[in-house]
């Protein structure tokens, strides 16, 4: 797994508000930028998740289903963080997560879904997620998630 960016990513404990955007790692002397993959079929959520991550200086790619996420990894792409939606066409979140873990992907994979039932959560977590958040993803949830990423590396 590539080295993770430093604590300055979340150095500013305050959340971004309007123009007061948290300066991402690109403005600091770092080894590398944190990278993220958004796996989501809904175009509105793609746009929002991408903006949330970009506002924190995270380099983000977006794919629209689990199969595209798997194909990306097959071609050698590596990400620090993967935000995985649950229900998607072609290959859904739980299946994509299982496949990625079987491939040896060690990235932090976080499920982001509208489903809040215990059974759905359990199935998704058992597929190999590190964590699970209910939609909509907010800046607060993302900051806390990224803080864990930094702390654990």
């Amino acid at each position, binding site marked *: 797994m590539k080295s993770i960016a430093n604590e300055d990513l979340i150095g500013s404990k305050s959340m*971004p508000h309007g123009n007061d*955007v948290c300066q991402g790692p690109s403005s600091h002397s770092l080894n590398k930028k944190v990278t993220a993959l958004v796996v989501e079929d809904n175009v*509105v959520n793609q*746009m*929002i998740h991408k*903006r*949330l991550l970009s506002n924190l200086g995270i380099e983000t790619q977006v794919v629209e289903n689990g199969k595209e996420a798997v194909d990306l990894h097959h071609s050698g792409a590596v990400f620090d963080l993967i935000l995985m939606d649950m229900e998607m066409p072609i290959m859904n979140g739980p299946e994509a997560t299982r496949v990625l873990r079987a491939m040896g992907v060690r990235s932090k994979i976080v499920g982001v879904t*509208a489903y809040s039932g215990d059974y759905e959560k359990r199935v998704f977590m058992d597929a190999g997620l590190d964590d699970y958040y209910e939609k*909509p993803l*907010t800046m607060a949830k993302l900051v806390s998630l990224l803080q864990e990423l930094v702390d654990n590396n």
Partner: protein
Amino acid sequence: MCVQWGKSKIGLLQGFLDEQFIQLEELQDDANPNFVEEVVTLFYRDSTRLLLNIDQALEKSPLDFSKLDNYMHQFKGSSSSIGATKVNNECTHFREYCNAGNAEGCMSTFQQMKKEHATLRKKLEAYFQVSSICLVTFFSS
């Protein structure tokens, strides 16, 4: 002066949008000054397509409740991301009727949902107009 505009801006949307909308506003900055409007535009493009699909699916007989539920799940995925409270509530009712196999319930809820969808659109158009007036006022003062 812009504080007054700000208060009337929020007043326009109260009851129709929840704090998720405020989250979107907080993502807007100098580098992305039209972010909220872009998200809303995308929402209306995507949701209008889904409404058309649901309309067509409701004309079939017998109704395919599973397909309808699927469309509504996609719809709700977007509407909750912009914080559209009233629209979301109708989505929930619709899905309950789908699960119960209640065709009449689906149809009447769908009509209500389309009304809420259209009302919200007007509110948002007014909101963005007020926002741009405020900007013009600010920069010309």
